[in-house]
Protein backbone atom coordinates (compact mmCIF):
# COMPACT_ATOMS: atom_id res chain seq x y z
CA UNK A 1 0.00 0.00 0.00
CA UNK A 2 1.98 2.91 -1.26
CA UNK A 3 -0.59 5.62 -0.65
CA UNK A 4 -0.92 4.80 3.03
CA UNK A 5 2.53 6.17 3.56
CA UNK A 6 1.61 9.38 1.82
CA UNK A 7 1.41 12.25 4.21
CA UNK A 8 0.18 15.76 4.21
CA UNK A 9 3.42 17.38 3.31
CA UNK A 10 2.19 20.92 3.53
CA UNK A 11 3.99 22.66 6.35
CA UNK A 12 1.92 24.22 9.05
CA UNK A 13 2.39 27.92 9.46
CA UNK A 14 2.80 28.33 13.18
CA UNK A 15 4.12 26.50 16.17
CA UNK A 16 5.77 23.79 14.11
CA UNK A 17 8.30 22.07 16.31
CA UNK A 18 6.68 22.40 19.75
CA UNK A 19 3.41 21.16 18.34
CA UNK A 20 5.12 18.29 16.62
CA UNK A 21 7.10 17.11 19.60
CA UNK A 22 4.06 17.28 21.88
CA UNK A 23 2.20 15.24 19.30
CA UNK A 24 4.97 12.66 19.40
CA UNK A 25 4.95 12.62 23.15
CA UNK A 26 1.18 12.18 23.27
CA UNK A 27 1.17 9.35 20.74
CA UNK A 28 3.93 7.37 22.39
CA UNK A 29 2.34 7.90 25.79
CA UNK A 30 -0.97 6.54 24.52
CA UNK A 31 0.87 3.63 22.93
CA UNK A 32 2.48 2.83 26.27
CA UNK A 33 -0.96 2.71 27.87
CA UNK A 34 -2.21 0.49 25.05
CA UNK A 35 0.62 -1.97 25.44
CA UNK A 36 0.76 -1.84 29.23
CA UNK A 37 -1.56 -4.86 29.77
CA UNK A 38 0.73 -6.99 27.58
CA UNK A 39 3.74 -5.86 29.57
CA UNK A 40 1.96 -7.02 32.71
CA UNK A 41 1.27 -10.43 31.20
CA UNK A 42 4.88 -10.86 30.15
CA UNK A 43 6.50 -9.86 33.44
CA UNK A 44 4.09 -11.77 35.64
CA UNK A 45 4.33 -14.95 33.60
CA UNK A 46 7.80 -15.41 35.09
CA UNK A 47 6.82 -14.88 38.72
CA UNK A 48 5.31 -17.00 41.45
CA UNK A 49 1.99 -16.24 43.08
CA UNK A 50 3.42 -14.60 46.18
CA UNK A 51 5.56 -12.05 44.40
CA UNK A 52 2.68 -11.17 42.11
CA UNK A 53 0.42 -10.44 45.03
CA UNK A 54 3.16 -8.44 46.73
CA UNK A 55 3.88 -6.39 43.64
CA UNK A 56 2.36 -7.10 40.22
CA UNK A 57 4.27 -4.22 38.64
CA UNK A 58 7.80 -5.04 39.69
CA UNK A 59 10.41 -6.90 37.74
CA UNK A 60 13.14 -8.94 39.30
CA UNK A 61 12.96 -11.47 42.07
CA UNK A 62 12.88 -15.18 41.52
CA UNK A 63 12.27 -16.23 37.93
CA UNK A 64 9.87 -19.13 37.68
CA UNK A 65 10.09 -20.79 34.28
CA UNK A 66 8.08 -23.77 35.45
CA UNK A 67 4.95 -21.66 34.95
CA UNK A 68 5.28 -22.22 31.23
CA UNK A 69 5.87 -25.94 31.46
CA UNK A 70 2.96 -26.33 33.81
CA UNK A 71 0.61 -24.14 31.76
CA UNK A 72 1.64 -25.96 28.61
CA UNK A 73 0.66 -29.36 29.96
CA UNK A 74 -2.32 -28.29 32.06
CA UNK A 75 -4.09 -26.49 29.26
CA UNK A 76 -3.29 -29.20 26.73
CA UNK A 77 -1.58 -26.59 24.64
CA UNK A 78 -0.53 -28.76 21.72
CA UNK A 79 -3.95 -30.21 21.31
CA UNK A 80 -5.60 -26.80 21.41
CA UNK A 81 -3.03 -25.29 19.09
CA UNK A 82 -3.34 -28.13 16.62
CA UNK A 83 -7.16 -28.03 16.63
CA UNK A 84 -7.14 -24.26 16.14
CA UNK A 85 -4.61 -24.56 13.34
CA UNK A 86 -6.49 -27.26 11.46
CA UNK A 87 -9.86 -25.55 11.86
CA UNK A 88 -8.57 -22.10 10.94
CA UNK A 89 -6.42 -23.16 7.99
CA UNK A 90 -9.02 -25.43 6.40
CA UNK A 91 -11.91 -23.04 6.96
CA UNK A 92 -10.03 -20.11 5.50
CA UNK A 93 -8.95 -22.05 2.42
CA UNK A 94 -12.40 -23.50 1.84
CA UNK A 95 -14.06 -20.12 2.25
CA UNK A 96 -11.68 -18.52 -0.25
CA UNK A 97 -12.09 -21.36 -2.74
CA UNK A 98 -15.88 -21.61 -2.75
CA UNK A 99 -16.68 -17.95 -2.21
CA UNK A 100 -14.56 -16.79 -5.12
CA UNK A 101 -16.24 -19.30 -7.44
CA UNK A 102 -19.67 -18.29 -6.22
CA UNK A 103 -18.96 -14.59 -6.54
CA UNK A 104 -17.68 -15.16 -10.07
CA UNK A 105 -20.79 -17.08 -11.00
CA UNK A 106 -23.11 -14.46 -9.50
CA UNK A 107 -21.36 -11.73 -11.44
CA UNK A 108 -21.06 -13.42 -14.83
CA UNK A 109 -24.30 -15.37 -14.99
CA UNK A 110 -27.08 -13.00 -14.25
CA UNK A 111 -30.30 -14.73 -13.34
CA UNK A 112 -33.14 -14.08 -10.97
CA UNK A 113 -32.11 -16.86 -8.60
CA UNK A 114 -28.56 -15.56 -8.45
CA UNK A 115 -29.78 -12.09 -7.60
CA UNK A 116 -31.97 -13.43 -4.84
CA UNK A 117 -29.16 -15.55 -3.39
CA UNK A 118 -26.69 -12.71 -3.54
CA UNK A 119 -29.17 -10.38 -1.86
CA UNK A 120 -29.78 -12.96 0.86
CA UNK A 121 -26.07 -13.25 1.52
CA UNK A 122 -25.62 -9.50 1.81
CA UNK A 123 -28.70 -9.14 3.99
CA UNK A 124 -27.62 -12.01 6.23
CA UNK A 125 -24.63 -9.98 7.37
CA UNK A 126 -27.08 -8.05 9.53
CA UNK A 127 -28.13 -11.14 11.47
CA UNK A 128 -26.41 -11.37 14.84
CA UNK A 129 -24.98 -14.79 15.55
CA UNK A 130 -27.04 -14.91 18.74
CA UNK A 131 -30.24 -14.99 16.68
CA UNK A 132 -29.11 -18.18 14.99
CA UNK A 133 -27.23 -20.07 17.67
CA UNK A 134 -30.19 -21.65 19.46
CA UNK A 135 -31.82 -23.24 16.38
CA UNK A 136 -28.34 -24.06 15.06
CA UNK A 137 -27.53 -26.12 18.13
CA UNK A 138 -30.98 -27.67 17.99
CA UNK A 139 -30.69 -28.67 14.29
CA UNK A 140 -27.10 -29.90 14.33
CA UNK A 141 -27.25 -31.22 17.87
CA UNK A 142 -30.43 -32.99 18.89
CA UNK A 143 -31.79 -33.52 15.36
CA UNK A 144 -28.78 -34.43 13.22
CA UNK A 145 -26.40 -35.44 16.05
CA UNK A 146 -23.45 -33.88 14.26
CA UNK A 147 -21.98 -31.78 17.05
CA UNK A 148 -18.63 -32.27 18.78
CA UNK A 149 -16.87 -32.57 15.47
CA UNK A 150 -14.16 -30.40 13.92
CA UNK A 151 -15.48 -30.95 10.40
CA UNK A 152 -18.94 -29.70 11.16
CA UNK A 153 -17.39 -26.59 12.69
CA UNK A 154 -15.44 -26.00 9.47
CA UNK A 155 -18.67 -26.54 7.54
CA UNK A 156 -20.34 -23.86 9.67
CA UNK A 157 -17.48 -21.44 9.16
CA UNK A 158 -18.01 -21.77 5.43
CA UNK A 159 -21.68 -20.95 5.99
CA UNK A 160 -21.07 -17.95 8.21
CA UNK A 161 -17.99 -16.71 6.37
CA UNK A 162 -19.20 -17.04 2.80
CA UNK A 163 -21.51 -14.02 2.77
CA UNK A 164 -18.82 -11.45 3.48
CA UNK A 165 -16.30 -13.18 1.23
CA UNK A 166 -18.70 -13.52 -1.70
CA UNK A 167 -19.63 -9.88 -1.26
CA UNK A 168 -16.02 -8.67 -1.19
CA UNK A 169 -14.97 -10.86 -4.15
CA UNK A 170 -18.04 -9.75 -6.08
CA UNK A 171 -17.15 -6.12 -5.53
CA UNK A 172 -13.56 -6.61 -6.64
CA UNK A 173 -14.36 -8.73 -9.69
CA UNK A 174 -16.43 -5.99 -11.24
CA UNK A 175 -13.16 -4.28 -12.11
CA UNK A 176 -11.82 -7.29 -14.05
CA UNK A 177 -12.54 -7.23 -17.78
CA UNK A 178 -14.41 -10.11 -19.38
CA UNK A 179 -12.39 -10.14 -22.58
CA UNK A 180 -9.58 -12.28 -21.23
CA UNK A 181 -12.03 -14.91 -20.08
CA UNK A 182 -13.89 -14.87 -23.37
CA UNK A 183 -10.64 -15.39 -25.21
CA UNK A 184 -9.81 -18.33 -22.99
CA UNK A 185 -13.23 -19.85 -23.56
CA UNK A 186 -12.88 -19.44 -27.33
CA UNK A 187 -9.49 -21.14 -27.13
CA UNK A 188 -11.20 -24.19 -25.67
CA UNK A 189 -10.78 -23.77 -21.92
CA UNK A 190 -13.64 -25.04 -19.85
CA UNK A 191 -15.34 -22.61 -17.49
CA UNK A 192 -13.57 -24.13 -14.53
CA UNK A 193 -10.17 -23.87 -16.19
CA UNK A 194 -10.88 -20.30 -17.19
CA UNK A 195 -11.77 -19.41 -13.64
CA UNK A 196 -8.76 -21.00 -12.01
CA UNK A 197 -6.17 -20.09 -14.64
CA UNK A 198 -7.30 -16.59 -15.53
CA UNK A 199 -9.60 -15.12 -12.90
CA UNK A 200 -8.43 -16.56 -9.60
CA UNK A 201 -4.80 -15.34 -9.91
CA UNK A 202 -6.12 -11.83 -10.56
CA UNK A 203 -8.04 -11.95 -7.30
CA UNK A 204 -4.87 -12.32 -5.23
CA UNK A 205 -5.08 -9.00 -3.34
CA UNK A 206 -8.68 -9.68 -2.37
CA UNK A 207 -7.84 -13.22 -1.37
CA UNK A 208 -5.09 -11.97 0.94
CA UNK A 209 -7.44 -9.44 2.52
CA UNK A 210 -10.05 -12.09 3.14
CA UNK A 211 -7.54 -14.61 4.44
CA UNK A 212 -6.36 -12.07 7.01
CA UNK A 213 -9.88 -11.16 8.08
CA UNK A 214 -10.97 -14.78 8.30
CA UNK A 215 -7.84 -16.02 10.09
CA UNK A 216 -8.25 -13.42 12.83
CA UNK A 217 -11.96 -14.14 13.14
CA UNK A 218 -11.78 -17.93 13.20
CA UNK A 219 -8.59 -18.29 15.24
CA UNK A 220 -10.04 -16.07 17.99
CA UNK A 221 -13.66 -17.17 17.82
CA UNK A 222 -15.11 -18.47 21.04
CA UNK A 223 -18.90 -18.68 21.08
CA UNK A 224 -19.44 -20.92 18.05
CA UNK A 225 -16.72 -23.46 18.97
CA UNK A 226 -17.93 -23.46 22.56
CA UNK A 227 -21.34 -24.56 21.30
CA UNK A 228 -20.12 -27.03 18.69
CA UNK A 229 -17.09 -28.67 20.31
CA UNK A 230 -17.97 -30.46 23.49
CA UNK A 231 -15.25 -32.96 24.33
CA UNK A 232 -11.94 -31.86 25.77
CA UNK A 233 -9.92 -33.34 22.91
CA UNK A 234 -11.64 -31.11 20.35
CA UNK A 235 -11.10 -27.81 22.13
CA UNK A 236 -9.53 -24.91 20.25
CA UNK A 237 -7.00 -22.62 21.89
CA UNK A 238 -9.51 -19.96 23.08
CA UNK A 239 -11.61 -22.73 24.63
CA UNK A 240 -8.75 -24.42 26.43
CA UNK A 241 -7.47 -21.04 27.65
CA UNK A 242 -10.88 -20.19 29.05
CA UNK A 243 -11.38 -23.50 30.85
CA UNK A 244 -7.80 -23.48 32.07
CA UNK A 245 -8.47 -20.08 33.58
CA UNK A 246 -11.59 -21.36 35.28
CA UNK A 247 -9.64 -24.15 36.96
CA UNK A 248 -6.63 -22.18 38.22
CA UNK A 249 -8.25 -18.85 39.05
CA UNK A 250 -5.82 -17.67 41.67
CA UNK A 251 -2.48 -18.99 40.44
CA UNK A 252 -1.65 -15.79 38.60
CA UNK A 253 1.83 -16.66 37.40
CA UNK A 254 0.54 -19.82 35.81
CA UNK A 255 -2.40 -18.00 34.25
CA UNK A 256 -0.23 -15.28 32.75
CA UNK A 257 2.10 -17.90 31.31
CA UNK A 258 -0.91 -19.60 29.76
CA UNK A 259 -2.20 -16.33 28.31
CA UNK A 260 1.22 -15.53 26.91
CA UNK A 261 1.37 -18.94 25.23
CA UNK A 262 -2.05 -18.31 23.69
CA UNK A 263 -1.10 -14.87 22.43
CA UNK A 264 2.23 -15.88 20.86
CA UNK A 265 0.94 -17.60 17.68
CA UNK A 266 -1.18 -14.58 16.68
CA UNK A 267 1.66 -12.19 17.36
CA UNK A 268 3.92 -14.38 15.22
CA UNK A 269 1.32 -14.33 12.43
CA UNK A 270 1.13 -10.55 12.73
CA UNK A 271 4.89 -10.04 12.62
CA UNK A 272 5.26 -12.31 9.59
CA UNK A 273 2.33 -10.80 7.72
CA UNK A 274 2.32 -7.29 9.17
CA UNK A 275 2.00 -5.46 5.88
CA UNK A 276 -0.78 -7.72 4.67
CA UNK A 277 -2.62 -7.60 7.96
CA UNK A 278 -2.64 -3.80 8.20
CA UNK A 279 -3.59 -3.24 4.57
CA UNK A 280 -5.99 -6.19 4.68
CA UNK A 281 -7.88 -4.75 7.62
CA UNK A 282 -8.08 -1.37 5.87
CA UNK A 283 -9.19 -2.81 2.54
CA UNK A 284 -11.65 -5.25 4.05
CA UNK A 285 -13.60 -2.49 5.68
CA UNK A 286 -13.70 -0.19 2.69
CA UNK A 287 -15.14 -2.77 0.35
Amino acid at each position, binding site marked *: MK*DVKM*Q*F*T*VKEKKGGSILRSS*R*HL*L*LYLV*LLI*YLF*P*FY*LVVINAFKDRRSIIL*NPLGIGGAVKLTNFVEAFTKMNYWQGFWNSLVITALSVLIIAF*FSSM*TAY*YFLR*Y*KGKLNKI*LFFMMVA*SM*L*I*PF*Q*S*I*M*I*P*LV*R*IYGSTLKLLDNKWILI*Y*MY*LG*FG*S*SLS*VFVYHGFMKSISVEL*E*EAALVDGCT*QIQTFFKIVFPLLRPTTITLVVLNVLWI*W*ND*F*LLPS*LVLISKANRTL*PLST*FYFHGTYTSD*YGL*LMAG*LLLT*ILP*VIAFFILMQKH*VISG*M*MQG*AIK
Partner: protein
Amino acid sequence: MITEKGFCAKLKTFLIFAGPTTFVFLSVVIIPFLFGIYLSLTNWDGIASAYRFIGLQNYLTVFRDQLFWKSFFLTLKYVFSTVVLVNVIAFVLAYLLTRGVKGENFLRAGFFVPNLIGGIVLGLIWHFVFSRVLVFIGKSLNLSLFSYSWLANPQKALWALVIVSVWQYSGYMMLIHIAGLVNIPKELFEAAIIDGASAGQRIRRIILPLMVPSFVVTLFLTLQRSFMVYDVNLALTDGGPFRSTELISMHVYKKAFLAQEYGIGQAQAFFLFIIVAAITLAQVYFTKKWEVEM
Protein backbone atom coordinates in the same frame (compact mmCIF):
# COMPACT_ATOMS: atom_id res chain seq x y z
CA MET B 1 -21.62 -11.83 -20.38
CA ILE B 2 -21.54 -15.53 -20.98
CA THR B 3 -24.71 -17.26 -22.09
CA GLU B 4 -25.68 -20.86 -21.64
CA LYS B 5 -27.75 -23.08 -23.86
CA GLY B 6 -29.73 -25.90 -22.31
CA PHE B 7 -31.27 -26.01 -18.85
CA CYS B 8 -29.06 -28.95 -17.89
CA ALA B 9 -25.89 -27.10 -18.83
CA LYS B 10 -27.10 -24.12 -16.84
CA LEU B 11 -27.83 -26.24 -13.81
CA LYS B 12 -24.45 -27.93 -14.04
CA THR B 13 -22.56 -24.65 -14.05
CA PHE B 14 -24.66 -23.40 -11.16
CA LEU B 15 -23.97 -26.51 -9.13
CA ILE B 16 -20.25 -26.42 -9.79
CA PHE B 17 -19.71 -22.74 -9.09
CA ALA B 18 -22.37 -21.74 -6.61
CA GLY B 19 -23.78 -25.07 -5.43
CA PRO B 20 -21.61 -25.82 -2.38
CA THR B 21 -21.64 -22.26 -1.02
CA THR B 22 -25.37 -21.93 -1.55
CA PHE B 23 -26.11 -25.23 0.14
CA VAL B 24 -23.90 -24.56 3.14
CA PHE B 25 -25.07 -20.96 3.46
CA LEU B 26 -28.74 -21.99 3.39
CA SER B 27 -28.24 -24.85 5.83
CA VAL B 28 -26.13 -22.89 8.32
CA VAL B 29 -27.62 -19.41 8.18
CA ILE B 30 -30.99 -19.18 6.50
CA ILE B 31 -32.68 -22.38 7.66
CA PRO B 32 -31.66 -21.93 11.32
CA PHE B 33 -32.75 -18.31 11.11
CA LEU B 34 -36.20 -19.20 9.81
CA PHE B 35 -36.47 -22.20 12.10
CA GLY B 36 -35.55 -19.85 14.95
CA ILE B 37 -38.50 -17.61 14.19
CA TYR B 38 -40.72 -20.67 14.38
CA LEU B 39 -39.05 -21.86 17.62
CA SER B 40 -39.72 -18.51 19.24
CA LEU B 41 -43.42 -19.23 18.74
CA THR B 42 -43.30 -22.54 20.62
CA ASN B 43 -42.82 -23.64 24.21
CA TRP B 44 -39.78 -25.80 23.49
CA ASP B 45 -37.66 -26.41 26.59
CA GLY B 46 -34.70 -28.04 24.92
CA ILE B 47 -35.32 -31.54 26.16
CA ALA B 48 -38.86 -32.63 25.32
CA SER B 49 -39.26 -33.68 21.73
CA ALA B 50 -42.87 -32.56 21.79
CA TYR B 51 -43.60 -28.88 21.88
CA ARG B 52 -46.59 -26.78 21.04
CA PHE B 53 -47.17 -23.71 18.98
CA ILE B 54 -48.06 -20.98 21.44
CA GLY B 55 -48.19 -17.92 19.20
CA LEU B 56 -46.71 -14.70 20.49
CA GLN B 57 -46.79 -15.72 24.11
CA ASN B 58 -42.97 -15.86 24.41
CA TYR B 59 -42.73 -12.33 23.11
CA LEU B 60 -45.26 -11.16 25.70
CA THR B 61 -43.21 -12.89 28.39
CA VAL B 62 -40.09 -11.17 27.11
CA PHE B 63 -41.72 -7.75 27.11
CA ARG B 64 -42.88 -8.24 30.68
CA ASP B 65 -39.50 -9.56 31.82
CA GLN B 66 -37.81 -6.92 33.97
CA LEU B 67 -34.43 -8.63 33.84
CA PHE B 68 -34.54 -8.64 30.06
CA TRP B 69 -35.19 -4.90 29.93
CA LYS B 70 -32.52 -4.27 32.50
CA SER B 71 -30.05 -6.16 30.33
CA PHE B 72 -31.33 -4.39 27.22
CA PHE B 73 -30.88 -0.87 28.63
CA LEU B 74 -27.52 -1.83 30.04
CA THR B 75 -26.55 -2.91 26.54
CA LEU B 76 -27.75 0.39 25.08
CA LYS B 77 -25.65 2.28 27.62
CA TYR B 78 -22.64 0.11 26.85
CA VAL B 79 -23.12 0.36 23.07
CA PHE B 80 -23.54 4.12 23.14
CA SER B 81 -20.46 4.74 25.29
CA THR B 82 -18.32 2.29 23.37
CA VAL B 83 -19.32 3.51 19.91
CA VAL B 84 -18.74 7.16 20.79
CA LEU B 85 -15.42 6.61 22.57
CA VAL B 86 -14.03 4.18 20.00
CA ASN B 87 -14.78 6.50 17.13
CA VAL B 88 -13.51 9.66 18.79
CA ILE B 89 -10.26 8.03 19.91
CA ALA B 90 -9.79 6.22 16.61
CA PHE B 91 -10.29 9.41 14.64
CA VAL B 92 -7.92 11.45 16.79
CA LEU B 93 -5.23 8.75 16.57
CA ALA B 94 -5.72 8.46 12.81
CA TYR B 95 -5.53 12.23 12.42
CA LEU B 96 -2.31 12.48 14.42
CA LEU B 97 -0.83 9.49 12.60
CA THR B 98 -1.31 10.92 9.11
CA ARG B 99 0.63 14.09 9.74
CA GLY B 100 4.16 12.84 9.47
CA VAL B 101 5.14 11.34 12.80
CA LYS B 102 8.37 9.43 13.26
CA GLY B 103 7.78 5.72 13.58
CA GLU B 104 4.34 6.01 12.08
CA ASN B 105 4.06 2.41 10.95
CA PHE B 106 5.31 1.16 14.29
CA LEU B 107 2.70 3.25 16.11
CA ARG B 108 -0.08 2.09 13.82
CA ALA B 109 0.87 -1.54 14.31
CA GLY B 110 1.12 -1.02 18.08
CA PHE B 111 -2.35 0.46 18.41
CA PHE B 112 -3.72 -2.37 16.31
CA VAL B 113 -2.28 -5.17 18.45
CA PRO B 114 -5.28 -5.64 20.81
CA ASN B 115 -7.38 -6.45 17.74
CA LEU B 116 -5.30 -9.47 16.92
CA ILE B 117 -6.25 -11.22 20.09
CA GLY B 118 -9.55 -12.81 20.88
CA GLY B 119 -12.05 -11.35 23.31
CA ILE B 120 -11.60 -14.20 25.75
CA VAL B 121 -7.88 -13.62 26.18
CA LEU B 122 -8.32 -9.84 26.30
CA GLY B 123 -11.00 -10.23 28.95
CA LEU B 124 -8.79 -12.51 31.03
CA ILE B 125 -5.84 -10.11 30.79
CA TRP B 126 -7.96 -7.18 31.93
CA HIS B 127 -9.51 -9.26 34.65
CA PHE B 128 -6.03 -9.49 36.12
CA VAL B 129 -5.39 -5.80 35.50
CA PHE B 130 -8.59 -4.63 37.19
CA SER B 131 -8.66 -7.05 40.08
CA ARG B 132 -4.93 -7.12 40.90
CA VAL B 133 -2.81 -4.46 39.28
CA LEU B 134 -5.08 -1.44 39.57
CA VAL B 135 -6.01 -2.37 43.12
CA PHE B 136 -2.32 -2.63 43.93
CA ILE B 137 -1.68 0.81 42.40
CA GLY B 138 -4.69 2.25 44.21
CA LYS B 139 -3.58 0.93 47.57
CA SER B 140 0.07 1.89 47.14
CA LEU B 141 -0.67 5.42 46.04
CA ASN B 142 -3.78 5.86 48.16
CA LEU B 143 -5.99 6.43 45.14
CA SER B 144 -9.53 5.73 46.26
CA LEU B 145 -10.59 5.34 42.62
CA PHE B 146 -8.65 2.09 42.31
CA SER B 147 -8.33 0.82 45.85
CA TYR B 148 -11.18 -1.65 45.29
CA SER B 149 -11.60 -3.77 42.20
CA TRP B 150 -13.89 -2.20 39.62
CA LEU B 151 -15.09 -5.66 38.75
CA ALA B 152 -16.61 -6.08 42.20
CA ASN B 153 -18.48 -2.79 42.02
CA PRO B 154 -21.84 -2.81 40.19
CA GLN B 155 -21.47 0.85 39.21
CA LYS B 156 -17.96 0.55 37.85
CA ALA B 157 -17.95 -2.91 36.30
CA LEU B 158 -19.78 -1.74 33.17
CA TRP B 159 -17.18 0.97 32.66
CA ALA B 160 -14.45 -1.61 32.96
CA LEU B 161 -16.17 -3.42 30.11
CA VAL B 162 -16.39 -0.19 28.10
CA ILE B 163 -12.69 0.54 28.66
CA VAL B 164 -11.65 -2.90 27.46
CA SER B 165 -13.86 -2.66 24.36
CA VAL B 166 -12.57 0.80 23.51
CA TRP B 167 -9.03 -0.45 23.88
CA GLN B 168 -9.86 -3.47 21.72
CA TYR B 169 -11.54 -1.74 18.80
CA SER B 170 -10.02 1.74 18.56
CA GLY B 171 -6.90 0.48 16.78
CA TYR B 172 -8.91 -1.24 14.07
CA MET B 173 -11.18 1.76 13.52
CA MET B 174 -8.07 3.94 13.48
CA LEU B 175 -6.80 1.97 10.47
CA ILE B 176 -10.06 2.56 8.62
CA HIS B 177 -9.89 6.29 9.38
CA ILE B 178 -6.27 6.39 8.21
CA ALA B 179 -7.32 4.78 4.94
CA GLY B 180 -9.94 7.53 4.60
CA LEU B 181 -7.61 10.36 5.56
CA VAL B 182 -4.86 9.50 3.09
CA ASN B 183 -7.41 9.55 0.29
CA ILE B 184 -8.26 13.19 0.84
CA PRO B 185 -6.52 15.12 -1.96
CA LYS B 186 -3.60 17.20 -0.77
CA GLU B 187 -4.60 20.09 -3.01
CA LEU B 188 -7.59 20.76 -0.82
CA PHE B 189 -5.32 21.39 2.15
CA GLU B 190 -2.92 23.49 0.17
CA ALA B 191 -5.79 25.60 -1.08
CA ALA B 192 -7.25 25.89 2.40
CA ILE B 193 -3.93 26.92 3.93
CA ILE B 194 -3.37 29.50 1.25
CA ASP B 195 -6.85 30.85 1.93
CA GLY B 196 -5.87 31.14 5.58
CA ALA B 197 -8.02 28.39 7.09
CA SER B 198 -7.00 27.45 10.63
CA ALA B 199 -6.38 23.83 11.65
CA GLY B 200 -9.78 23.70 13.34
CA GLN B 201 -11.49 25.05 10.25
CA ARG B 202 -9.70 22.53 8.09
CA ILE B 203 -10.90 19.70 10.28
CA ARG B 204 -14.47 20.90 10.34
CA ARG B 205 -14.81 22.07 6.74
CA ILE B 206 -12.65 19.62 4.84
CA ILE B 207 -11.72 16.55 6.81
CA LEU B 208 -14.93 15.68 8.60
CA PRO B 209 -17.22 16.05 5.56
CA LEU B 210 -14.86 13.97 3.44
CA MET B 211 -14.49 11.36 6.17
CA VAL B 212 -18.17 10.51 6.26
CA PRO B 213 -17.67 7.32 4.21
CA SER B 214 -15.15 6.08 6.79
CA PHE B 215 -17.53 6.90 9.60
CA VAL B 216 -20.29 4.98 7.83
CA VAL B 217 -18.07 1.90 8.04
CA THR B 218 -16.63 2.40 11.52
CA LEU B 219 -20.00 3.22 13.07
CA PHE B 220 -21.53 0.18 11.41
CA LEU B 221 -18.77 -2.12 12.62
CA THR B 222 -18.64 -0.76 16.16
CA LEU B 223 -22.43 -0.76 16.53
CA GLN B 224 -22.70 -4.32 15.32
CA ARG B 225 -19.80 -5.61 17.37
CA SER B 226 -20.75 -3.89 20.58
CA PHE B 227 -24.36 -5.06 20.36
CA MET B 228 -23.12 -8.62 19.95
CA VAL B 229 -20.30 -8.54 22.49
CA TYR B 230 -20.02 -11.79 24.39
CA ASP B 231 -16.42 -13.00 24.79
CA VAL B 232 -15.07 -10.00 26.70
CA ASN B 233 -18.22 -9.87 28.77
CA LEU B 234 -17.83 -13.52 29.71
CA ALA B 235 -14.11 -13.42 30.48
CA LEU B 236 -14.05 -10.07 32.25
CA THR B 237 -17.14 -10.00 34.44
CA ASP B 238 -19.34 -12.99 33.55
CA GLY B 239 -22.29 -10.63 33.93
CA GLY B 240 -21.51 -9.81 37.54
CA PRO B 241 -21.54 -8.44 40.08
CA PHE B 242 -25.28 -8.93 40.62
CA ARG B 243 -26.08 -8.98 36.89
CA SER B 244 -24.82 -5.40 36.64
CA THR B 245 -22.93 -6.21 33.43
CA GLU B 246 -25.07 -8.93 31.89
CA LEU B 247 -25.35 -7.64 28.34
CA ILE B 248 -27.99 -8.84 25.95
CA SER B 249 -25.94 -11.56 24.24
CA MET B 250 -25.06 -13.11 27.52
CA HIS B 251 -28.63 -12.78 28.71
CA VAL B 252 -29.88 -14.69 25.67
CA TYR B 253 -27.19 -17.32 26.11
CA LYS B 254 -28.05 -17.87 29.77
CA LYS B 255 -31.79 -17.90 29.09
CA ALA B 256 -31.43 -20.58 26.46
CA PHE B 257 -28.53 -22.78 27.46
CA LEU B 258 -28.51 -22.46 31.23
CA ALA B 259 -32.17 -21.82 32.14
CA GLN B 260 -33.27 -24.11 29.28
CA GLU B 261 -36.00 -21.69 28.24
CA TYR B 262 -35.22 -22.00 24.57
CA GLY B 263 -38.46 -20.55 23.24
CA ILE B 264 -38.12 -17.40 25.32
CA GLY B 265 -34.39 -17.16 24.62
CA GLN B 266 -35.07 -17.37 20.91
CA ALA B 267 -37.78 -14.70 21.17
CA GLN B 268 -35.20 -12.44 22.83
CA ALA B 269 -32.65 -13.30 20.17
CA PHE B 270 -35.09 -12.45 17.41
CA PHE B 271 -35.93 -9.18 19.14
CA LEU B 272 -32.18 -8.49 19.26
CA PHE B 273 -31.99 -9.10 15.51
CA ILE B 274 -34.80 -6.60 14.84
CA ILE B 275 -33.11 -3.94 16.98
CA VAL B 276 -29.62 -4.45 15.57
CA ALA B 277 -30.88 -4.54 11.98
CA ALA B 278 -33.02 -1.43 12.48
CA ILE B 279 -30.29 0.57 14.19
CA THR B 280 -27.49 -0.36 11.80
CA LEU B 281 -29.64 0.19 8.70
CA ALA B 282 -30.83 3.55 10.04
CA GLN B 283 -27.22 4.48 10.82
CA VAL B 284 -26.02 3.60 7.33
CA TYR B 285 -28.99 5.39 5.74
CA PHE B 286 -28.56 8.60 7.72
CA THR B 287 -24.77 8.77 7.63
CA LYS B 288 -24.79 8.12 3.88
CA LYS B 289 -26.95 11.22 3.50
CA TRP B 290 -24.09 13.26 4.93
CA GLU B 291 -21.70 12.11 2.27
CA VAL B 292 -20.53 14.84 -0.06
CA GLU B 293 -19.75 14.57 -3.74
CA MET B 294 -16.18 15.30 -4.73
